[in-house]
């Protein structure tokens, strides 16, 4: 079709009703002129008119054909159907509201969950050709190690060698594996604020193929001479938030630690780095590593391994080719380092080391790792809810279409094609579904925000860009259309397949027809009940699992502890500096002395804050190399602050100083497993690390009860506690056991900290209990949402039951009237109705139980302290379902029982 032709067609469309008027006018003129001519020829007025009309032809059909020439008739009939659909929706508002509400909830929930799946698992990184990007090693390992044979964390010199010598990547970039939160100052502002600073190699932006929207990105030249390039690139979001979208941002400066950095560029809005859900605020070249707090002086250290490496495959190079090239180089590079300590053990590690290349088109994400399973389960749940909603609507439409049987029969009798009517009924469902879909999208926006908050757990939102996009809209559209077809097609075909004479004779359908219609309705109800059972049992399982987790004995007392973070990096002293050690002790002492405070102590790890681990060598014991000890550097009052019971020996005191003999308190499990049996571990010695070097020797002075360290589900860990002066740690976290008001204590503690050092930034003030429960975020999200959806499912099923029963009772009014007239008691009539629904519910439950048991196996790994569906959960759900089903049927049953036989019999 030529563009000008389309334009003419379009223009005609906008002429609307004038088109018909003009056409009618010119056709009328034609006939009148003809009539006049015939009159002039001497015909009688009557015959002149008749002949003029005869010669002209059928005006109506000519008008229609003319209109059709423009090719818009499909549109017109669509509009007709839409209008009709909307009208019929408005005619039964109750049905429409219920249908729309269940659809909106169903579609909204699906869209919301899908938008998270999309963000976390489906979307590609917004960089150039993300499918060419490879991550060295396996996702999930971060931090710093000096281990030989590390295949995920690498040193900066290793990165440089790999970048130089490989033949398979067009470029390789290094990213520091930890995203540091640094308290920095924007020049011209007084207060420090937290900034998430990402250290990257100069090749980072070129490798990703990302350009700045303003200024420039970092380049290889910025990563040459240490300390020579105090520059950084800020994220778009941070520029908007912290600099208020200052157009002159490139003139601004930021002070981190003692160094002032120039802003040289702003990254594009969609770019969030390489890790989904971890958006850095700014990127600093690795050459500045020693100047960005905590100022690691490690750029030249061959075995300070803390970098993640990514590479962009050269065109035509396969993952296998790249892997083999990387592994050959890996061995060569490590062995070429002169300080590589290749004793027998390390050589063994190195020989077994194999670098895996992980495609990272979708970016890296610890969130994905944590939430992919819960999200899949929630997606399943919401799909079931939507199915139930569809069944419900199909049932309602079925009931209504039976009521419309007469109307449809009349239309078919008048010559309407069956397909035309089916099309119209489907259009009606589509109107319903699309309206529901629109409402659903609106709802999903709210749900997304809610979900993001739930996922984030604490007060800080996870920086995830969960927004409407094409993927999402396509998904919703697909779901909506599928829904419309699903709930519309069966009623549409059913209601057009009828014996016309029967339907025309009897507007309400004869009572014999009622039974022929219900099987489908009954099947729908049975499947709703079955699905509801699945969802209910699921919800109960998840809730019980959450309760079990919450009741886990942590080994410490979760209650009554305030926790906060300070950023001691801003002071600019090394942690082993005596002034730092003294400062921490002073804060501990002063806070402890506050009224209402019972104990206060710093710790390197309170709960689920990562770990520092090494192997150990216990005197007189042959331990496996793989045994790893988690070390926790703490203050003297740590055990009192956490209320971790001491089982034997003593805790730390003022006698344990930098120069005194090194001591440690060990965990119960460590004492039991790692020390020679029959020997009291107290007073026994061990070495941190594999080799018995004198400076790593420690003496056990106490045994503490086992505590949960990383998460609530772990088995007892090997933990030792070390006093801070003997292994100084640049602390961040303070735990304060207090009595009384949280807010007052919090204020007093913060004031005290600032009285020791006014510059210390304080953040994440909260309770230990919150910190513990924040590790249950995904279990909590799943439990709460599955409970919500379980209830929703049951509610929807109730509506379905109510609808079906009301309908059948209406149909059977006549029969019930006769029963009552010949002496049936009201109670027996009620039972007649209830019996049917009880039977349907029982069948639904019988169908649902095997599905439930199979389904609970799938979620088994997500449950804690449960092995899938058990008798208690099943029984609770069955009883609850029966109860609400009967309740839903009770109202129609009562109505049936109150039928007045005289009225009922006169009814037909």
């Amino acid at each position, binding site marked *: 079709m030529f563009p000008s032709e389309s334009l*003419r067609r379009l223009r005609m469309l906008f002429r609307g009703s004038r088109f018909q008027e003009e056409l009618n006018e010119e056709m009328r003129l034609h006939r009148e*002129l003809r009539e006049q001519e015939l009159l002039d020829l001497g015909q009688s007025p009557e015959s002149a008119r008749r002949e003029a009309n005869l010669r002209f032809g059928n005006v109506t059909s000519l008008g229609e054909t003319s209109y059709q020439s423009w090719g818009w008739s499909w549109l017109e009939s669509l509009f007709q159907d839409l209008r009709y659909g909307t009208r019929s929706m408005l005619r039964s508002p109750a049905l429409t509201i219920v249908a729309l509400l269940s659809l909106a909830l169903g579609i909204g929930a699906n869209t919301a969950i899908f938008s998270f799946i999309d963000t976390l698992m489906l979307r590609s990184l917004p960089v150039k050709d993300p499918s060419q990007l490879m991550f060295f090693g396996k996702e999930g390992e971060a931090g710093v190690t000096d281990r030989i044979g590390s295949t995920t964390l690498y040193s900066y010199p290793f990165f440089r060698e790999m970048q130089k010598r490989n033949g398979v990547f067009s470029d390789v970039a290094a990213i520091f594996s930890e995203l540091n939160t640094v308290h920095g100052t924007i020049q011209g502002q007084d207060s420090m604020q937290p900034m998430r600073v990402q250290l990257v190699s100069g090749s980072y932006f070129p490798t990703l193929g990302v350009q700045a929207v303003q200024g420039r990105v970092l380049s290889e030249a910025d990563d040459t001479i240490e300390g020579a390039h105090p520059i950084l690139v800020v994220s778009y979001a941070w520029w908007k938030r912290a600099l208020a979208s200052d157009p002159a941002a490139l003139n601004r400066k930021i002070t981190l630690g003692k160094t002032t950095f120039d802003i040289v560029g702003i990254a594009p809005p969609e770019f969030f780095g390489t890790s989904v859900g971890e958006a850095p605020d700014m990127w600093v070249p690795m050459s500045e590593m020693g100047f960005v707090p905590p100022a690691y002086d490690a750029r030249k250290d061959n075995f300070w391994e803390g970098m993640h490496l990514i590479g962009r495959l050269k065109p035509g190079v396969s993952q296998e080719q790249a892997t083999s090239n990387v592994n050959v180089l890996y061995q060569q590079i490590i062995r070429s380092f002169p300080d590589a300590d290749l004793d027998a053990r390390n050589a063994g590690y190195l020989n077994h080391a194999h670098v895996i290349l992980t495609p990272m088109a979708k970016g890296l994400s610890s969130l994905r790792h944590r939430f992919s399973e819960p999200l899949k389960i929630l997606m399943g749940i919401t799909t079931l809810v939507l199915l139930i909603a569809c069944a419900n609507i199909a049932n309602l439409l079925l009931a209504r279409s039976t009521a419309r049987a007469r109307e449809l029969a009349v239309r078919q009798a008048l010559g309407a094609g069956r397909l035309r009517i089916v099309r119209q009924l489907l259009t009606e469902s589509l109107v319903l579904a699309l309206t529901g879909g629109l409402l659903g999208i609106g709802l999903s926006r709210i749900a997304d925000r809610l979900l993001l908050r739930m996922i984030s757990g604490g007060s800080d939102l996870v920086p995830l860009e969960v927004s409407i996009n094409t993927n999402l809209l396509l998904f919703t559209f697909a779901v909506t259309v599928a829904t419309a077809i699903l709930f519309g097609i069966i009623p549409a075909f059913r209601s057009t397949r009828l014996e016309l004479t029967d339907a025309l004779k009897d507007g309400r359908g004869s009572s014999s027809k009622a039974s022929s219609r219900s099987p489908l309705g009954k099947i729908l109800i049975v499947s709703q009940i079955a699905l509801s059972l699945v969802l209910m049992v699921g919800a109960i399982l998840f809730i019980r699992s959450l309760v079990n987790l919450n009741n886990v004995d942590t080994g410490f007392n979760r209650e009554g502890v305030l926790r906060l973070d300070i950023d001691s990096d801003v002071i600019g002293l090394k942690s082993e500096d005596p002034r730092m050690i003294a400062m921490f002790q002073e804060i501990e002492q002063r806070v402890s002395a506050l009224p209402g405070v019972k104990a206060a102590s710093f710790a390197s790890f309170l709960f689920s804050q990562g770990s520092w681990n090494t192997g150990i060598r216990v005197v007189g014991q042959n331990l496996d190399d793989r045994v790893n000890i988690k070390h926790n550097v703490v203050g003297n009052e740590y055990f009192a602050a956490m209320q971790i019971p001491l089982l034997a020996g003593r805790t730390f005191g003022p006698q344990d100083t930098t120069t005194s003999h090194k001591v440690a308190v060990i965990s119960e499990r460590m004492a039991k497993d790692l020390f020679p049996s029959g020997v009291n571990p107290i007073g026994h010695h061990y070495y941190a690390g594999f080799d018995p070097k004198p400076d790593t020797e420690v003496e056990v002075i106490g045994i503490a009860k086992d505590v949960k360290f990383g998460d609530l589900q772990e088995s007892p860990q090997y933990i030792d506690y070390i006093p801070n002066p003997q292994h100084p740690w640049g602390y961040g976290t303070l735990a304060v056991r207090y009595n009384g008001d949280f807010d007052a204590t919090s204020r007093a503690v913060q004031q005290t900290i600032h009285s020791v050092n006014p510059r210390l930034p304080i953040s994440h003030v909260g309770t230990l209990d919150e910190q513990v429960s924040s590790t249950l975020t995904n279990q909590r999200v799943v439990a709460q949402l599955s409970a919500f959806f379980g209830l929703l499912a049951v509610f929807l099923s109730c509506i379905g039951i109510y609808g079906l029963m009301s309908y059948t009772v209406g149909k059977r009014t006549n029969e019930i009237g006769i029963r009552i007239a010949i002496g049936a008691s009201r109670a027996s009539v009620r039972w007649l109705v209830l019996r049917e629904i009880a039977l349907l519910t029982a069948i639904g439950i019988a169908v649902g139980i095997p599905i439930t048991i199979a389904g609970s196996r799938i979620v088994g790994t997500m449950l804690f302290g449960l092995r899938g569906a058990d008798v208690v959960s099943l029984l609770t759900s069955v009883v609850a379902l029966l109860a609400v089903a009967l309740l839903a049927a009770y109202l129609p049953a009562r109505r049936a029982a109150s039928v007045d036989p005289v009225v009922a019999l006169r009814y037909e």
Partner: protein
Amino acid sequence: MKRDEIPPGTLYLLILKALSLHGPLHGYEMANFIQRTSDNVLQVEEGSLYPALQRMLVKGWVTAEWGVTAGNRRARYYRLTPAGRKQLDAELSQFERVFGAIHRITQIA
């Protein structure tokens, strides 16, 4: 008087020819032109001119404009466009080809 139905597909040709001979016409004038010029042999169901004219409007062969008749009545006048003129040539040559062929066949006695 016996009248013959016009051969299918030639209505466009007749309308185009009428317009090219007489300039802007309204529907009634076209009907009369076709009848008179064909000595009343060709009969058009007069109303069928109008769907055909709409089709031609879509194709862009003609444009329509409201004007006033000699009898001072409002009428829609159709005018040939350059595209319409080209179409007329195309239809004419096709017509001649086809009818020439038929003619040659029917002449073989």
